[in-house]
């Protein structure tokens, strides 16, 4: 039996009833009196100079109450495009009207004169000198051959920009046109050991280029905010967001408004996956429209707008090379990656290093670039950057295993890092269940005696991720009826409120049902980090623990007074404080203590927890799929999908399984069907007709296997569980397809046409 009675249990979610009955309040349910409907006016071109914006006709339309452009942004921070648009759907203006149809009509009446420019939407095209430049000077923009341009930059800081030395370097640059990349938004370089030496010593070297498409988080609820600016200047924003405090500071920074003049009320979130932190997408326009109209304004995106102007996950192209000995030791790995960051910088280029995986690779070199294209910017999506890099890394591992004739699971086990191994960032590898997790999935899936009929195959892959950490605060009050109430400011993200509630119930030794949780707005609740990066259970779990322990201190103090005995003789259990040595037994309930506390000098039972940072521990997700491919039509059916994960400790195993299933399904979708497609003028599949997300008919039940190797600093040993499960699935699927039909697909998604074409190249006749 578990040493715990509430944590570790599969308990129903605290928000289950409100979700099932529809009582939960989402952003679109907020409707203050007099509310106007906002509509964002968007660019109809993917790349164009803006010659003029004429709002005069729209202003005359009855029912229109406010129209704003960049001229209405007092801080000057870019909210709307002015001189140039960089992607289809980029905001140019916004209107607020008494009715959504009027807002729509007014948006159409705003006349925008464009001078259309050439468009570039492919990273490999964009880095060429022939590509149109998205930012800056057409001749010099874009970092050039990196080492030389770095020297130029350094020199330019010290000497006159016309110096001979700089000119000499610039001349040198011109000689290396094929090494000059243009439209670069950011870069990241990592090197350890000597890859050239490693490849030279390898018996097998595999090199391939992997293409991973841009995908959308496809949360069910599109972005929405309702903003209300009152006559005193106080601003209230009902925001569908993962981080109300981040939105508060974001609005304050963007508009130059004092922080505490803004109250952000987080509404129940219809999914986020990392994509719901944006400030200017809907929140800032809503505030500006409300300030101008003097009325509350709702700005709500359509699904089409989500695809045009959301912040999806970046696509990328990764050129990867791996060398290994014939007895299975990986010696070297080198990656060159171009991440599609869209119109702004910010793609997860740093994640390219995840091609290292959890393996001992003595020689590694990674060069990664963010590349501008005529697309919206990107944002986080469930383990940002990891699924892309791990797709390349884990696909290539299978090719090596195949070439040296080694079982893919054994090959991985053999190369995995172990406790005490030096880690790249310094220090040594902590105890992580890398091997345990891979072995668990292999055992559960029946890998060791796997069978496959014709056109069936098995694939395995692993992916790692480490949860983030951030500041948070929790209060817990114990009431006269013995119940406890939690108050905090963190957005519930698929079960985190439930985990916090379980932790508090565990420590206070009261039934789970007697603990309730309430989220405050930014005016009332203590600061909380955003609900992203798998932080919440780790951070808020630790915070909740501290708060409950603080409450317990007060409880024992009160009991000591009341029962007239030293605290050392007291024990809190089953919702009461017991005198350990008393015969006959003597105890006092939490309710009685709470009632008593009201007339004491020390006052009511209020526990406070405040926490910011402790080192996290990596987590591993390992997955195995069995598929069957129809070689004539290229359609793939998943017969089995098993996912294991080292979760540290499962505070609510049911919720953890939900996370494993959800992440795995999203990874499957990225592998097999999801893809934002771009034509000559921007995104061409902005809706669920041609942007396919899977349904339950596409997959068998994902079998989840929970592995628990505790994290030293996690609450009860828990690690963040949300992100790891998406990381290996892209490669799992590609490896299974390869095993089934002997075709290595390096360009996702693995659509039927790609399989048919690849098989045709292999000589298959349908």
């Amino acid at each position: 039996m578990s040493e715990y009675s509430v944590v570790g249990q599969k308990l129903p979610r605290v928000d289950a009833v409100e979700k099932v009955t529809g009582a939960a309040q989402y952003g679109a349910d907020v409707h203050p009196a007099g509310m106007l409907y906002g509509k964002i006016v968007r660019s109809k071109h993917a790349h164009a100079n803006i010659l003029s914006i004429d709002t005069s006709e729209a202003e005359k339309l009855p029912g229109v109450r406010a129209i704003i452009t960049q001229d209405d942004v007092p801080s000057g921070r870019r909210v709307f495009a002015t001189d140039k648009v960089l992607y289809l759907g980029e905001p140019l203006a916004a209107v607020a009207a008494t009715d959504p149809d009027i807002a729509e009509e007014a948006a159409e009446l705003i006349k925008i004169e464009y001078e259309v420019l050439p468009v570039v939407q492919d990273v490999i095209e964009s880095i060429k000198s022939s590509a149109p430049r998205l930012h800056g000077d057409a001749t010099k923009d874009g970092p050039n051959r990196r080492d030389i341009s770095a020297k130029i930059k350094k020199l330019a800081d010290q000497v006159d920009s016309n110096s001979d030395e700089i000119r000499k370097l610039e001349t040198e640059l011109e000689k290396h046109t094929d090494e000059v990349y243009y439209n670069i938004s950011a870069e990241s370089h990592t090197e350890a050991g000597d890859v050239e030496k490693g490849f030279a010593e390898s018996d097998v070297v595999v090199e391939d280029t992997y293409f991973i498409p841009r995908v959308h988080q496809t949360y069910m609820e599109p972005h929405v905010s309702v903003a209300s600016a009152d006559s005193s200047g106080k601003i209230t924003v009902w925001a569908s967001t993962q981080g109300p405090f981040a939105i508060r500071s974001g609005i304050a920074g963007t508009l130059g408004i004092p922080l505490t003049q803004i109250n952000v009320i987080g509404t129940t979130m219809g999914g986020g996956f990392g994509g719901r932190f944006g400030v200017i997408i809907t929140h800032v326009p809503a505030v500006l429209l409300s300030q101008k109209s003097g009325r509350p304004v709702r700005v709500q995106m359509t699904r089409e707008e989500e695809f045009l102007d959301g912040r999806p996950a970046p696509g990328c192209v990764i050129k990867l090379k791996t060398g290994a000995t014939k007895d299975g030791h990986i010696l070297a790995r080198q990656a060159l990656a171009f991440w599609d960051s869209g119109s702004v910088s910010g793609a997860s280029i740093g994640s390219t290093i995840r091609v290292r995986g959890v393996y001992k690779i003595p020689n590694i070199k990674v060069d990664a670039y963010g590349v501008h294209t005529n697309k919206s910017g990107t944002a986080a999506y469930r383990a940002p950057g990891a699924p892309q890099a791990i797709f390349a890394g884990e696909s290539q591992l299978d090719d090596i295993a195949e070439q040296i004739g080694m079982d893919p699971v054994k090959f991985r086990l053999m190369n995995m890092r172990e406790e005490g191994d030096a880690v790249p960032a310094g220090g040594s590898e902590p105890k992580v269940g890398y091997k345990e997790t891979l072995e668990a999935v292999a055992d559960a899936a029946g890998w060791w005696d796997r069978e496959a009929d014709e056109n069936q195959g098995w694939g395995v892959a692993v992916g790692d991720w480490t949860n983030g950490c951030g500041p948070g605060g929790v209060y817990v009050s114990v009431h006269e009826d013995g119940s406890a109430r939690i108050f905090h400011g963190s957005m519930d993200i698929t079960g985190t409120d439930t985990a916090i509630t379980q932790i508090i119930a565990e420590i206070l030794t009261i039934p789970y049902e007697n603990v309730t949780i309430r989220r405050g707005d930014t005016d009332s609740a203590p600061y909380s980090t955003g609900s992203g990066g798998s932080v919440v259970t780790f951070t808020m779990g630790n915070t909740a623990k501290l708060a409950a322990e603080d409450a317990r201190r007060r409880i024992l103090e009160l009991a000591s007074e009341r029962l007239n005995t030293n605290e050392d003789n007291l024990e809190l259990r089953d919702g009461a404080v017991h005198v350990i040595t008393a015969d006959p037994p003597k105890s006092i309930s939490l309710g009685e203590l709470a009632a008593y506390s009201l007339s004491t000098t020390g006052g009511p039972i209020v526990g406070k927890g405040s926490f910011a940072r402790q080192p996290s521990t990596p987590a591993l997700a390992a997955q195995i799929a069995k598929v069957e491919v129809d070689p004539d039509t290229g359609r793939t059916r998943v017969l089995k999908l098993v996912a294991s994960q080292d979760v540290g400790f499962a505070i609510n195993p049911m919720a953890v399984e939900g996370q494993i299933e959800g992440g795995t399904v999203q990874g499957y979708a990225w592998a097999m069907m999801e893809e934002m497609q771009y034509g000559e003028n921007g995104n061409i599949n902005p809706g669920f007709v041609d942007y396919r997300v899977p349904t339950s008919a596409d997959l068998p039940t994902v079998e989840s296997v929970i592995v628990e190797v505790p994290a030293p600093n996690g609450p009860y040993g828990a690690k963040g569980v949300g992100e790891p499960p998406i990381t290996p699935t892209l490669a799992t699927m590609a490896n299974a397809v390869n095993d089934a039909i002997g075709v290595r697909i390096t360009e996702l998604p693995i659509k039927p046409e790609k399989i048919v074409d690849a098989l045709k190249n292999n000589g298959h006749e349908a």
Partner: protein
Amino acid sequence: MKNFEYFEPTTLAEASHLFAQGHAQLLAGGTDLVIGMKAYTETPQSVISLQKIPDLDGITTDSDNGITIGAMTKVREVELSEDVQEHHTALAEGASEIGSIQIRNLATIGGNIAHASPAADTVAGLLVADAQVSIASAEGERTVPINELFTGPGQTVLKPGEIITQFHLPSPASGSHYIKHKIREVMDLAFIGVASAVNLQNGVIKDARIGLAAVAPTPIRATEAENLLKGKGPTPELLQQAGEAAAAATSPISDLRCSAEHRKEMVDVLTRRTLRYALDRATR
């Protein structure tokens, strides 16, 4: 959604009269129209519901297993009809491929056809059933064979005021089958759709019909492939030839779903495959 005037006529004549006045759309199940109106791609000034007009729905079977399907019959009813499943399997299978069950409980077969999408899932099944389409207007009634109904994407021979009232499927083939090429298992649009129907007599193909969707501006019959099959015993070589002939009859486009070449290849593969299933059913 733009404002519009809404009518609920109770007779076909009244509906036809309203419809003939232009800027009007007929409302059957609404699963295409209402979505279009919400997206402002359809902005009719008047919407004419066909719900209150009696006798436009239902499936009836006559003595020689010919079937009549009212235009307002829900797609779900077509899918679940035992008579349709038995005698026009390809049509029932096509109906089962549309949207979700919720959508199929709203959508009508008449709407699926009148919308004239080249990718409509019931169209290949109706093509191989040789369906006769009854059309009514204030001027009277006429009948058009299904393969003459379509003139282009979203375009039909229907004149202003004309309303599809029913589909008559004459005596059935002994076996038929429909396959939709898609990515997602359910709720996907057809990359292509192929239906085949055969009549076997003493091991010889007496009659064969092949209907193809989403491979040309309109749904088409692959008549050359059909003619190749007639009078012959089914062999793998013959099916191969039929597949190739069917592919040759197409003029697909490349779009965001797949390339024209892939569509052609899949017509070949799925023509053979649907023929095999149809022949198998015919011999059972």
